[in-house]
């Protein structure tokens, strides 16, 4: 295998006779030299937005709206998780301990999703749900900005309570909606190598806002039930992109009229192009996505190897 670093892919080249991919056009990141490579199979795994950008930039006579975009779904259904709704409390039993640096100790806690799992847990105002990432214990930062006061009393208060904090923060599912999409910037913005960039259109809906309101209420209820004194609860939802779990835009599906990829991460339109990253996701759920991306990629690789042995690729 030859690994060629510093290669920025401009677009995927297509065989004009078959419509299948035949290689990639590349510009060297450092020298700006233009190169072309040929291959039997093209695997796109540049991360969610870069993969979709490459497909949208790969226009040809056979694929006028971008490679793999006969459905019109390419670029659509962009999601990210949202956070920003959090809470902090202190436990009286831990207050005033001998201060030690507990940064890095195993004090993490995850509360999995508990809303809309079945009829009993159905929430009347939103679909799907969220989980909580929690932590406790002293860190390098005593969190003094969260306590009111001034002078000696303030310092004493920080010393007393900085040994006793517990934190909860939300990781929530943003619904996949067609209206949240990316496109090649119609303004003509390009990157340093002259390659058109994406323009991103995404915003939260009332489903996410209702979920955020419920999460804040649940944080307060949970901390109080555990015996904590509430210091702060609430916050603003993180703007899409802030959690860096961007997913979707080249969604999988059985119907090639409504999806870009099949269940093997293979484009419906071009059988020798595969997309094996977060772009393939149909929804975000509320869990971190990396392990799922790895599992889907392993499955796709097995399929590619089998199909090549059979002579289908």
């Amino acid at each position, binding site marked *: 295998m030859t690994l060629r670093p510093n290669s920025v892919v401009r677009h995927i080249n297509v065989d004009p006779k078959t419509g299948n991919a035949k*290689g990639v056009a590349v510009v060297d990141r450092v020298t700006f030299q233009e190169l072309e490579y040929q291959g039997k199979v093209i695997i796109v795994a540049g991360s969610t937005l870069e993969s979709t950008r490459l497909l949208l930039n790969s226009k040809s006579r056979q694929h006028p709206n971008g490679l793999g975009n006969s459905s019109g779904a390419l670029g659509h259904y962009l999601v990210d998780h949202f956070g920003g709704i959090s809470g902090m409390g202190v436990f009286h039993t831990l207050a005033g301990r001998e201060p030690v640096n507990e940064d890095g100790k195993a004090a993490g806690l995850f509360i999995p999703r508990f809303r809309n799992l079945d009829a009993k847990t159905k929430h009347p105002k939103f679909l799907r749900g969220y989980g909580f990432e929690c932590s406790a214990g002293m860190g390098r930062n005593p969190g003094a900005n969260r306590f009111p006061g001034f002078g000696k009393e303030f310092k004493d208060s920080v010393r007393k309570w900085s040994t006793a904090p517990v934190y909860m923060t939300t990781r929530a599912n943003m619904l996949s909606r067609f209206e949240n999409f990316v496109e090649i*910037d119609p*303004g003509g*913005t*390009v*990157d340093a190598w002259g390659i058109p960039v994406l*323009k991103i259109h995404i915003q939260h809906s009332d489903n996410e806002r209702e979920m955020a309101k419920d999460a804040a209420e649940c944080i307060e209820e949970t901390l109080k039930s555990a015996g904590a004194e509430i210091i702060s609860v609430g916050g*603003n939802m993180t703007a899409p992109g802030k959690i860096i779990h961007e997913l979707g835009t080249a969604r999988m599906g059985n119907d090639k009229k409504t999806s870009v990829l099949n269940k093997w991460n293979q484009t419906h339109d071009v059988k020798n192009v595969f997309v094996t990253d977060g772009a393939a996701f149909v929804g975000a759920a509320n869990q971190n996505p990396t392990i799922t991306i790895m599992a889907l990629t392993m499955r796709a690789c097995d399929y590619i190897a089998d199909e090549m042995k059979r002579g289908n690729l």
Partner: protein
Amino acid sequence: MFVQDNKQPSAKDAPGPKPTAKLYSIFALQRDKGFTGEFETSKSKHQFTFAPASARVENGKLQLLGTFRIGTRKVENVAATMISVQGGLGAVPTLITERRLKMPSGLPLTEATGDQGFVGALYFQLSPIKASALGLTIEMSKVQLNVRLFPTNQVERELQVLLSDVAATLYGETPDANAATPLLASLNQIF
């Protein structure tokens, strides 16, 4: 699996003159009233500034007119047309938080968007620049100027808010050039 395409020039396909390298986009930071950055050509680094002298609306887009300098050399009357913007994340500028509106529903807000939104990066298309006037042998017929805003003084903060308002007015869902008029007056006052 991959094989580099071997393209050997034939005798009948003799190579022409080597094309001049093309500069696609350059990066700058907001510094006071202008933008300062650096780019590299043939292993040489060039520090540049673009200093806007005036602002206007041209074909519905913001256009800044100013001087492009590299060292002591300069090209005047360069037009920088704002083609796109990117929203900022994180701490919302105080001038924007002060006027933020609360959502009537009482539901949580999304940080740094809507009424709290502000620009974090600006993308300008520069009018063609005669590179030889700057002492360069590179094509600068269609250079994009990418500006990151990270205000550190009052002038930069005021410009960020004004440019955020211009972006919302001219590049939002319902562009309104008339609404941009007082904003342009404020921009020109600063320039």
